[in-house]
Protein backbone atom coordinates (compact mmCIF):
# COMPACT_ATOMS: atom_id res chain seq x y z
CA UNK A 1 0.00 0.00 0.00
CA UNK A 2 1.18 3.47 -0.83
CA UNK A 3 -0.40 6.38 0.91
CA UNK A 4 -0.13 10.06 0.07
CA UNK A 5 -0.73 12.26 3.08
CA UNK A 6 -1.65 15.89 2.47
CA UNK A 7 0.87 16.16 -0.34
CA UNK A 8 1.68 19.60 -1.69
CA UNK A 9 4.08 20.09 -4.56
CA UNK A 10 4.77 23.30 -6.39
CA UNK A 11 7.30 24.72 -8.79
CA UNK A 12 8.55 28.25 -9.16
CA UNK A 13 7.82 29.61 -12.62
CA UNK A 14 8.36 33.00 -14.15
CA UNK A 15 4.68 33.70 -13.49
CA UNK A 16 4.86 32.81 -9.83
CA UNK A 17 4.40 29.54 -8.06
CA UNK A 18 2.60 26.76 -9.87
CA UNK A 19 0.93 24.19 -7.64
CA UNK A 20 0.79 20.71 -9.11
CA UNK A 21 -0.83 19.27 -6.01
CA UNK A 22 -2.29 20.97 -3.00
CA UNK A 23 -2.97 18.90 0.11
CA UNK A 24 -3.55 15.77 -1.91
CA UNK A 25 -4.41 12.74 0.18
CA UNK A 26 -4.81 9.45 -1.59
CA UNK A 27 -4.38 5.74 -0.97
CA UNK A 28 -3.23 3.36 -3.64
CA UNK A 29 -4.79 -0.02 -2.87
CA UNK A 30 -2.30 -2.77 -2.14
CA UNK A 31 -1.42 -5.46 -4.64
CA UNK A 32 -2.74 -3.70 -7.72
CA UNK A 33 -1.01 -2.62 -10.90
CA UNK A 34 -1.70 1.06 -11.20
CA UNK A 35 -1.95 3.24 -14.27
CA UNK A 36 -1.57 6.98 -13.87
CA UNK A 37 -3.45 8.61 -16.69
CA UNK A 38 -4.20 12.20 -17.51
CA UNK A 39 -3.37 14.97 -19.90
CA UNK A 40 0.14 16.26 -20.51
CA UNK A 41 1.17 18.49 -17.67
CA UNK A 42 -1.48 17.15 -15.32
CA UNK A 43 1.23 15.96 -12.92
CA UNK A 44 1.44 12.22 -13.65
CA UNK A 45 5.20 12.16 -13.91
CA UNK A 46 5.56 14.44 -10.92
CA UNK A 47 3.38 12.07 -8.92
CA UNK A 48 5.48 9.13 -10.09
CA UNK A 49 8.67 10.89 -9.07
CA UNK A 50 7.19 11.80 -5.70
CA UNK A 51 6.29 8.17 -5.10
CA UNK A 52 9.78 7.14 -6.17
CA UNK A 53 11.37 9.56 -3.75
CA UNK A 54 13.19 11.36 -6.54
CA UNK A 55 11.31 14.52 -5.82
CA UNK A 56 10.25 15.55 -2.39
CA UNK A 57 6.96 17.25 -1.59
CA UNK A 58 6.83 20.80 -0.23
CA UNK A 59 4.60 19.48 2.51
CA UNK A 60 3.06 16.15 3.34
CA UNK A 61 4.41 12.64 3.05
CA UNK A 62 4.44 9.53 0.94
CA UNK A 63 4.02 6.61 3.32
CA UNK A 64 4.86 3.08 2.27
CA UNK A 65 6.65 -0.01 3.48
CA UNK A 66 7.18 -1.28 -0.04
CA UNK A 67 10.38 -1.18 -2.06
CA UNK A 68 9.98 1.14 -4.99
CA UNK A 69 12.25 1.18 -8.02
CA UNK A 70 13.86 4.10 -9.79
CA UNK A 71 12.10 4.88 -13.09
CA UNK A 72 12.54 1.72 -15.16
CA UNK A 73 14.83 2.16 -18.13
CA UNK A 74 16.28 5.39 -16.86
CA UNK A 75 19.10 5.87 -19.35
CA UNK A 76 20.21 9.23 -17.97
CA UNK A 77 21.57 7.71 -14.78
CA UNK A 78 24.83 6.56 -16.29
CA UNK A 79 28.23 8.17 -16.02
CA UNK A 80 29.52 8.51 -19.56
CA UNK A 81 33.18 8.03 -18.80
CA UNK A 82 32.60 4.77 -16.92
CA UNK A 83 31.97 1.46 -18.62
CA UNK A 84 28.60 -0.23 -18.61
CA UNK A 85 29.96 -2.76 -16.14
CA UNK A 86 31.17 -0.06 -13.72
CA UNK A 87 27.85 1.74 -13.92
CA UNK A 88 25.98 -1.45 -13.09
CA UNK A 89 28.33 -2.13 -10.20
CA UNK A 90 27.77 1.37 -8.90
CA UNK A 91 24.00 0.91 -8.71
CA UNK A 92 24.49 -2.52 -7.11
CA UNK A 93 26.63 -0.95 -4.41
CA UNK A 94 24.14 1.82 -3.76
CA UNK A 95 21.41 -0.76 -3.37
CA UNK A 96 23.55 -2.73 -0.94
CA UNK A 97 24.31 -5.82 -3.00
CA UNK A 98 27.08 -7.92 -1.50
CA UNK A 99 29.93 -9.31 -3.59
CA UNK A 100 28.16 -12.51 -4.59
CA UNK A 101 24.90 -10.76 -5.30
CA UNK A 102 26.70 -8.16 -7.37
CA UNK A 103 28.40 -10.75 -9.56
CA UNK A 104 24.97 -12.29 -10.26
CA UNK A 105 23.41 -8.97 -11.12
CA UNK A 106 26.28 -7.88 -13.36
CA UNK A 107 26.09 -11.17 -15.24
CA UNK A 108 22.33 -10.81 -15.59
CA UNK A 109 22.57 -7.31 -17.04
CA UNK A 110 25.40 -8.31 -19.36
CA UNK A 111 23.39 -11.20 -20.75
CA UNK A 112 20.11 -9.35 -20.87
CA UNK A 113 21.40 -6.20 -22.57
CA UNK A 114 23.21 -8.16 -25.30
CA UNK A 115 25.56 -5.36 -26.17
CA UNK A 116 28.61 -7.60 -26.42
CA UNK A 117 32.03 -6.09 -25.81
CA UNK A 118 30.47 -2.66 -25.45
CA UNK A 119 29.61 -3.68 -21.90
CA UNK A 120 33.24 -2.93 -21.07
CA UNK A 121 33.39 0.31 -23.05
CA UNK A 122 32.56 3.80 -21.71
CA UNK A 123 28.82 4.43 -21.83
CA UNK A 124 29.36 7.64 -23.80
CA UNK A 125 30.36 5.49 -26.79
CA UNK A 126 26.95 3.75 -26.77
CA UNK A 127 24.15 4.38 -29.20
CA UNK A 128 20.90 5.44 -27.58
CA UNK A 129 19.49 1.97 -28.21
CA UNK A 130 22.40 0.38 -26.38
CA UNK A 131 21.94 2.75 -23.48
CA UNK A 132 18.29 1.81 -23.26
CA UNK A 133 19.13 -1.88 -23.31
CA UNK A 134 21.58 -1.42 -20.47
CA UNK A 135 19.15 0.72 -18.51
CA UNK A 136 16.28 -1.71 -18.89
CA UNK A 137 18.46 -4.68 -17.99
CA UNK A 138 19.68 -2.87 -14.91
CA UNK A 139 16.14 -2.17 -13.72
CA UNK A 140 15.21 -5.80 -14.20
CA UNK A 141 18.22 -7.04 -12.22
CA UNK A 142 16.66 -5.83 -8.99
CA UNK A 143 13.63 -7.11 -7.17
CA UNK A 144 11.28 -4.36 -6.15
CA UNK A 145 7.70 -4.42 -4.90
CA UNK A 146 6.76 -1.63 -7.28
CA UNK A 147 8.34 -0.82 -10.61
CA UNK A 148 7.88 2.74 -11.76
CA UNK A 149 7.52 3.09 -15.50
CA UNK A 150 7.27 6.43 -17.23
CA UNK A 151 6.36 5.94 -20.88
CA UNK A 152 9.36 3.82 -21.77
CA UNK A 153 7.91 0.43 -22.50
CA UNK A 154 9.20 0.16 -26.02
CA UNK A 155 12.94 0.46 -26.45
CA UNK A 156 15.24 -1.24 -28.90
CA UNK A 157 14.37 -3.45 -31.81
CA UNK A 158 11.42 -5.83 -32.10
CA UNK A 159 13.31 -8.76 -30.61
CA UNK A 160 14.44 -6.76 -27.58
CA UNK A 161 10.98 -5.30 -27.10
CA UNK A 162 9.54 -8.81 -27.03
CA UNK A 163 12.16 -9.90 -24.51
CA UNK A 164 11.57 -6.83 -22.32
CA UNK A 165 7.87 -7.44 -22.36
CA UNK A 166 8.28 -11.03 -21.23
CA UNK A 167 10.78 -10.06 -18.56
CA UNK A 168 8.45 -7.42 -17.21
CA UNK A 169 5.54 -9.82 -17.12
CA UNK A 170 7.68 -12.31 -15.25
CA UNK A 171 8.53 -9.61 -12.71
CA UNK A 172 4.89 -8.62 -12.38
CA UNK A 173 4.00 -12.11 -11.19
CA UNK A 174 5.66 -11.15 -7.91
CA UNK A 175 5.59 -7.37 -8.01
CA UNK A 176 3.44 -4.49 -9.13
CA UNK A 177 3.81 -1.66 -11.52
CA UNK A 178 2.95 2.02 -11.48
CA UNK A 179 2.72 3.06 -15.08
CA UNK A 180 2.51 6.48 -16.64
CA UNK A 181 1.45 6.09 -20.23
CA UNK A 182 -0.57 7.57 -23.03
CA UNK A 183 -0.68 4.21 -24.69
CA UNK A 184 -4.03 2.82 -23.63
CA UNK A 185 -3.13 -0.65 -24.91
CA UNK A 186 -0.28 -0.82 -22.43
CA UNK A 187 -2.51 0.56 -19.73
CA UNK A 188 -5.24 -2.01 -20.17
CA UNK A 189 -2.76 -4.84 -20.73
CA UNK A 190 -0.67 -4.23 -17.62
CA UNK A 191 -2.84 -2.46 -15.10
CA UNK A 192 -5.67 -3.43 -12.74
CA UNK A 193 -6.74 0.02 -11.72
CA UNK A 194 -6.45 3.48 -13.15
CA UNK A 195 -5.82 6.74 -11.37
CA UNK A 196 -6.82 9.81 -13.31
CA UNK A 197 -4.67 12.79 -12.46
CA UNK A 198 -6.49 16.01 -13.21
CA UNK A 199 -6.55 19.52 -11.77
CA UNK A 200 -4.36 18.54 -8.84
CA UNK A 201 -6.69 15.72 -7.90
CA UNK A 202 -6.32 11.97 -8.16
CA UNK A 203 -9.40 9.91 -8.89
CA UNK A 204 -9.37 6.18 -8.46
CA UNK A 205 -11.05 3.99 -11.07
CA UNK A 206 -11.15 0.35 -9.92
CA UNK A 207 -12.04 -0.50 -13.49
CA UNK A 208 -9.33 0.45 -15.99
CA UNK A 209 -11.70 0.65 -18.94
CA UNK A 210 -13.87 3.09 -17.07
CA UNK A 211 -10.85 5.21 -16.19
CA UNK A 212 -9.79 5.31 -19.82
CA UNK A 213 -13.28 6.32 -20.87
CA UNK A 214 -13.34 9.11 -18.31
CA UNK A 215 -9.94 10.33 -19.49
CA UNK A 216 -10.76 10.14 -23.17
CA UNK A 217 -14.18 11.62 -22.67
CA UNK A 218 -12.50 14.58 -21.08
CA UNK A 219 -15.24 14.90 -18.48
CA UNK A 220 -14.70 13.53 -15.05
CA UNK A 221 -17.31 10.94 -14.22
CA UNK A 222 -16.75 9.71 -10.74
CA UNK A 223 -16.60 5.95 -10.52
CA UNK A 224 -18.80 4.01 -8.19
CA UNK A 225 -17.36 3.89 -4.71
CA UNK A 226 -14.76 6.51 -5.45
CA UNK A 227 -15.54 8.18 -2.17
CA UNK A 228 -14.71 5.03 -0.27
CA UNK A 229 -11.28 4.64 -1.83
CA UNK A 230 -9.55 4.56 1.55
CA UNK A 231 -11.34 1.49 2.88
CA UNK A 232 -10.51 -1.22 0.48
CA UNK A 233 -11.43 -0.54 -3.07
CA UNK A 234 -11.32 -3.95 -4.57
CA UNK A 235 -9.14 -4.22 -7.62
CA UNK A 236 -10.26 -6.77 -10.10
CA UNK A 237 -7.85 -9.50 -11.14
CA UNK A 238 -5.36 -8.64 -13.82
CA UNK A 239 -6.41 -9.05 -17.38
CA UNK A 240 -4.56 -11.58 -19.39
CA UNK A 241 -2.29 -10.03 -21.95
CA UNK A 242 -4.24 -8.64 -24.85
Amino acid at each position, binding site marked *: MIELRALTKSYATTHGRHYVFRDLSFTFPAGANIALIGRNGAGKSTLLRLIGGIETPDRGRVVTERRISW*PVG*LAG*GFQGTLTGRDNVKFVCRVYGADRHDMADKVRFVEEFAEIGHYFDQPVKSYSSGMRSRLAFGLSMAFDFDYYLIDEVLSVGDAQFRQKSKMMLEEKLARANVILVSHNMNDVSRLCDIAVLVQDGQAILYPDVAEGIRAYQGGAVTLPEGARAQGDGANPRPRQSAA
Partner: protein
Amino acid sequence: MTRSAWHIQKAVLFALYLRELKTRFGAHRFGALWLVLEPMAHVMVMVTLFSFIRDRVVPGVDFAVFLLVGLVPFFMFKSIAIRIMEGVEGNRALFSYRHITPMDVFITRALLEVLLYALVYALLLVAMGLSGLDVRIAHPMDALLAFAQMALFGFALGVVFSILVSYLPAAKIVIRIMFIPLYLMSGIIFPIARLPHDLLPWLLWNPLLHATELSRAAMFAAYPLVPGIDIGYVPLWILCALFAGLWFYRYRRFVLVANP
Protein backbone atom coordinates in the same frame (compact mmCIF):
# COMPACT_ATOMS: atom_id res chain seq x y z
CA MET B 1 15.41 -6.93 4.22
CA THR B 2 15.09 -3.26 4.99
CA ARG B 3 18.43 -1.63 5.52
CA SER B 4 19.12 0.79 8.32
CA ALA B 5 19.79 4.42 7.49
CA TRP B 6 23.43 4.02 8.50
CA HIS B 7 23.78 0.97 6.31
CA ILE B 8 22.39 2.83 3.30
CA GLN B 9 24.59 5.85 4.03
CA LYS B 10 27.68 3.67 4.11
CA ALA B 11 26.73 1.89 0.89
CA VAL B 12 26.08 5.19 -0.91
CA LEU B 13 29.32 6.82 0.22
CA PHE B 14 31.34 3.75 -0.67
CA ALA B 15 29.75 3.46 -4.12
CA LEU B 16 30.23 7.17 -4.81
CA TYR B 17 33.79 7.01 -3.56
CA LEU B 18 34.78 4.31 -6.03
CA ARG B 19 32.95 6.14 -8.78
CA GLU B 20 34.67 9.46 -8.07
CA LEU B 21 38.01 7.71 -7.84
CA LYS B 22 37.48 6.19 -11.26
CA THR B 23 36.23 9.38 -12.89
CA ARG B 24 38.53 11.88 -11.14
CA PHE B 25 41.25 11.28 -13.70
CA GLY B 26 39.09 9.66 -16.32
CA ALA B 27 38.92 12.57 -18.75
CA HIS B 28 42.67 12.88 -19.13
CA ARG B 29 45.24 10.53 -17.69
CA PHE B 30 47.54 13.47 -17.22
CA GLY B 31 45.30 14.46 -14.29
CA ALA B 32 46.96 12.21 -11.74
CA LEU B 33 50.36 13.48 -12.71
CA TRP B 34 49.19 17.09 -12.62
CA LEU B 35 48.17 16.66 -8.98
CA VAL B 36 51.84 16.12 -8.06
CA LEU B 37 53.27 18.36 -10.76
CA GLU B 38 51.28 21.50 -9.95
CA PRO B 39 52.69 22.14 -6.44
CA MET B 40 56.09 20.93 -7.64
CA ALA B 41 56.11 23.37 -10.55
CA HIS B 42 55.09 26.26 -8.28
CA VAL B 43 57.82 25.37 -5.80
CA MET B 44 60.44 25.12 -8.52
CA VAL B 45 59.54 28.39 -10.23
CA MET B 46 59.38 30.30 -6.96
CA VAL B 47 62.60 28.80 -5.59
CA THR B 48 64.41 29.73 -8.80
CA LEU B 49 62.96 33.23 -8.79
CA PHE B 50 63.68 33.94 -5.18
CA SER B 51 67.15 32.46 -5.23
CA PHE B 52 68.15 35.48 -7.29
CA ILE B 53 66.88 37.76 -4.58
CA ARG B 54 68.05 36.02 -1.45
CA ASP B 55 68.48 32.40 -0.48
CA ARG B 56 66.82 32.50 2.92
CA VAL B 57 63.55 34.32 3.33
CA VAL B 58 62.90 33.18 6.87
CA PRO B 59 65.94 32.37 8.96
CA GLY B 60 66.35 28.66 9.74
CA VAL B 61 63.77 27.62 7.14
CA ASP B 62 64.44 26.13 3.71
CA PHE B 63 62.55 28.21 1.21
CA ALA B 64 61.39 25.20 -0.82
CA VAL B 65 59.87 23.58 2.27
CA PHE B 66 58.39 26.91 3.27
CA LEU B 67 56.63 27.07 -0.10
CA LEU B 68 55.45 23.48 -0.06
CA VAL B 69 53.86 23.88 3.38
CA GLY B 70 51.94 26.88 2.06
CA LEU B 71 51.08 25.49 -1.37
CA VAL B 72 49.74 21.98 -0.83
CA PRO B 73 47.14 22.81 1.84
CA PHE B 74 46.02 25.79 -0.24
CA PHE B 75 45.64 23.68 -3.37
CA MET B 76 43.69 21.13 -1.38
CA PHE B 77 41.44 23.86 -0.01
CA LYS B 78 40.83 25.24 -3.49
CA SER B 79 40.27 21.83 -5.01
CA ILE B 80 37.76 20.75 -2.36
CA ALA B 81 35.80 23.99 -2.65
CA ILE B 82 35.67 23.92 -6.46
CA ARG B 83 34.93 20.23 -6.80
CA ILE B 84 32.05 20.53 -4.35
CA MET B 85 30.79 23.59 -6.20
CA GLU B 86 30.71 21.55 -9.42
CA GLY B 87 29.59 18.34 -7.74
CA VAL B 88 25.89 18.69 -8.39
CA GLU B 89 26.26 19.49 -12.06
CA GLY B 90 28.65 16.62 -12.67
CA ASN B 91 26.39 14.12 -10.99
CA ARG B 92 22.88 15.29 -11.73
CA ALA B 93 21.91 11.97 -13.24
CA LEU B 94 22.65 10.22 -9.97
CA PHE B 95 19.87 11.84 -8.04
CA SER B 96 17.31 9.65 -9.75
CA TYR B 97 18.46 6.96 -7.36
CA ARG B 98 16.55 7.93 -4.30
CA HIS B 99 19.28 7.22 -1.75
CA ILE B 100 21.78 9.62 -3.27
CA THR B 101 21.67 13.25 -2.20
CA PRO B 102 23.92 16.18 -3.15
CA MET B 103 25.40 16.07 0.35
CA ASP B 104 26.63 12.53 -0.31
CA VAL B 105 28.45 13.81 -3.37
CA PHE B 106 29.91 16.73 -1.39
CA ILE B 107 31.21 14.47 1.37
CA THR B 108 32.64 11.96 -1.08
CA ARG B 109 34.42 14.59 -3.13
CA ALA B 110 35.90 16.27 -0.06
CA LEU B 111 37.14 12.94 1.32
CA LEU B 112 38.74 12.03 -1.98
CA GLU B 113 40.54 15.37 -2.30
CA VAL B 114 41.82 15.18 1.28
CA LEU B 115 43.17 11.72 0.63
CA LEU B 116 44.82 12.66 -2.66
CA TYR B 117 46.45 15.81 -1.35
CA ALA B 118 47.61 14.11 1.86
CA LEU B 119 49.31 11.59 -0.39
CA VAL B 120 50.86 14.29 -2.58
CA TYR B 121 51.97 16.20 0.51
CA ALA B 122 53.66 13.16 2.04
CA LEU B 123 55.26 12.23 -1.26
CA LEU B 124 56.74 15.69 -1.85
CA LEU B 125 57.93 16.07 1.75
CA VAL B 126 59.70 12.73 1.58
CA ALA B 127 61.23 13.67 -1.78
CA MET B 128 62.50 16.95 -0.35
CA GLY B 129 63.80 15.16 2.73
CA LEU B 130 65.71 12.72 0.54
CA SER B 131 67.25 15.55 -1.40
CA GLY B 132 68.74 16.90 1.81
CA LEU B 133 66.27 19.55 2.92
CA ASP B 134 65.08 19.73 6.51
CA VAL B 135 61.49 18.47 6.53
CA ARG B 136 61.14 17.54 10.18
CA ILE B 137 57.70 18.50 11.52
CA ALA B 138 58.16 20.46 14.74
CA HIS B 139 54.62 20.03 16.08
CA PRO B 140 52.95 17.06 14.35
CA MET B 141 49.61 17.39 16.14
CA ASP B 142 49.35 21.07 15.27
CA ALA B 143 50.30 20.28 11.68
CA LEU B 144 47.53 17.69 11.50
CA LEU B 145 45.02 20.14 12.96
CA ALA B 146 46.09 22.85 10.52
CA PHE B 147 45.64 20.43 7.61
CA ALA B 148 42.24 19.29 8.87
CA GLN B 149 41.19 22.89 9.33
CA MET B 150 42.07 23.66 5.70
CA ALA B 151 40.02 20.66 4.53
CA LEU B 152 37.01 21.56 6.63
CA PHE B 153 37.14 25.18 5.50
CA GLY B 154 37.26 24.04 1.87
CA PHE B 155 34.25 21.83 2.50
CA ALA B 156 32.24 24.57 4.20
CA LEU B 157 32.97 27.09 1.46
CA GLY B 158 32.30 24.49 -1.23
CA VAL B 159 28.78 23.96 0.14
CA VAL B 160 28.20 27.71 0.22
CA PHE B 161 29.47 28.02 -3.37
CA SER B 162 27.28 25.19 -4.61
CA ILE B 163 24.21 26.98 -3.24
CA LEU B 164 25.36 30.31 -4.66
CA VAL B 165 25.93 28.76 -8.08
CA SER B 166 22.47 27.18 -8.00
CA TYR B 167 21.01 30.70 -7.76
CA LEU B 168 23.52 32.32 -10.06
CA PRO B 169 25.43 30.02 -12.42
CA ALA B 170 27.69 32.84 -13.60
CA ALA B 171 29.12 33.12 -10.07
CA LYS B 172 31.18 30.05 -10.88
CA ILE B 173 33.59 32.05 -13.02
CA VAL B 174 33.98 34.79 -10.43
CA ILE B 175 34.67 32.23 -7.72
CA ARG B 176 37.30 30.51 -9.83
CA ILE B 177 39.05 33.81 -10.52
CA MET B 178 38.81 34.80 -6.86
CA PHE B 179 41.34 32.11 -5.98
CA ILE B 180 44.13 33.96 -7.79
CA PRO B 181 44.19 37.08 -5.54
CA LEU B 182 43.54 34.76 -2.62
CA TYR B 183 46.67 32.84 -3.56
CA LEU B 184 48.69 36.05 -3.55
CA MET B 185 47.20 37.48 -0.36
CA SER B 186 47.44 34.43 1.82
CA GLY B 187 51.17 34.45 2.37
CA ILE B 188 51.63 31.32 0.36
CA ILE B 189 54.57 32.30 -1.82
CA PHE B 190 56.21 34.88 0.42
CA PRO B 191 56.21 35.56 4.15
CA ILE B 192 53.57 38.08 5.00
CA ALA B 193 55.91 39.80 7.46
CA ARG B 194 57.79 41.16 4.45
CA LEU B 195 54.87 43.33 3.42
CA PRO B 196 54.45 46.93 4.62
CA HIS B 197 53.12 46.87 8.15
CA ASP B 198 50.20 49.22 7.60
CA LEU B 199 48.78 46.65 5.16
CA LEU B 200 48.75 43.93 7.80
CA PRO B 201 45.49 44.82 9.60
CA TRP B 202 43.70 44.53 6.24
CA LEU B 203 45.40 41.29 5.23
CA LEU B 204 44.55 39.74 8.57
CA TRP B 205 40.87 39.69 7.61
CA ASN B 206 41.75 36.85 5.26
CA PRO B 207 41.25 33.55 7.12
CA LEU B 208 43.51 31.68 4.70
CA LEU B 209 46.42 33.82 5.81
CA HIS B 210 45.84 32.64 9.36
CA ALA B 211 45.50 29.03 8.25
CA THR B 212 48.69 29.17 6.17
CA GLU B 213 50.74 30.83 8.90
CA LEU B 214 49.51 28.28 11.45
CA SER B 215 50.52 25.43 9.09
CA ARG B 216 54.01 26.90 8.98
CA ALA B 217 54.19 27.49 12.73
CA ALA B 218 53.35 23.81 13.19
CA MET B 219 56.02 22.75 10.72
CA PHE B 220 58.98 24.90 11.72
CA ALA B 221 60.34 24.99 15.27
CA ALA B 222 61.13 28.70 15.48
CA TYR B 223 58.73 30.21 12.97
CA PRO B 224 58.22 33.91 13.62
CA LEU B 225 54.44 34.18 13.74
CA VAL B 226 53.13 37.58 12.66
CA PRO B 227 51.35 39.32 15.56
CA GLY B 228 47.62 39.18 15.02
CA ILE B 229 47.47 35.56 13.84
CA ASP B 230 44.66 34.00 15.82
CA ILE B 231 44.09 30.28 16.37
CA GLY B 232 40.36 30.85 16.79
CA TYR B 233 39.84 32.90 13.62
CA VAL B 234 39.66 30.12 11.02
CA PRO B 235 37.39 27.91 13.16
CA LEU B 236 35.06 30.88 13.46
CA TRP B 237 34.95 31.20 9.66
CA ILE B 238 34.39 27.48 9.30
CA LEU B 239 31.55 27.58 11.79
CA CYS B 240 29.86 30.51 10.04
CA ALA B 241 30.34 29.07 6.54
CA LEU B 242 29.11 25.63 7.60
CA PHE B 243 26.11 27.15 9.32
CA ALA B 244 25.17 29.28 6.32
CA GLY B 245 25.94 26.49 3.82
CA LEU B 246 23.96 23.81 5.62
CA TRP B 247 21.09 26.18 6.38
CA PHE B 248 20.64 27.07 2.72
CA TYR B 249 21.32 23.49 1.69
CA ARG B 250 18.36 22.46 3.83
CA TYR B 251 16.10 24.66 1.70
CA ARG B 252 17.82 24.27 -1.62
CA ARG B 253 18.59 20.55 -1.65
CA PHE B 254 15.62 19.67 -3.87
CA VAL B 255 16.25 22.55 -6.22
CA LEU B 256 19.83 21.38 -6.53
CA VAL B 257 18.60 17.98 -7.61
CA ALA B 258 15.96 19.18 -10.06
CA ASN B 259 16.83 19.36 -13.71
CA PRO B 260 17.45 22.88 -14.95
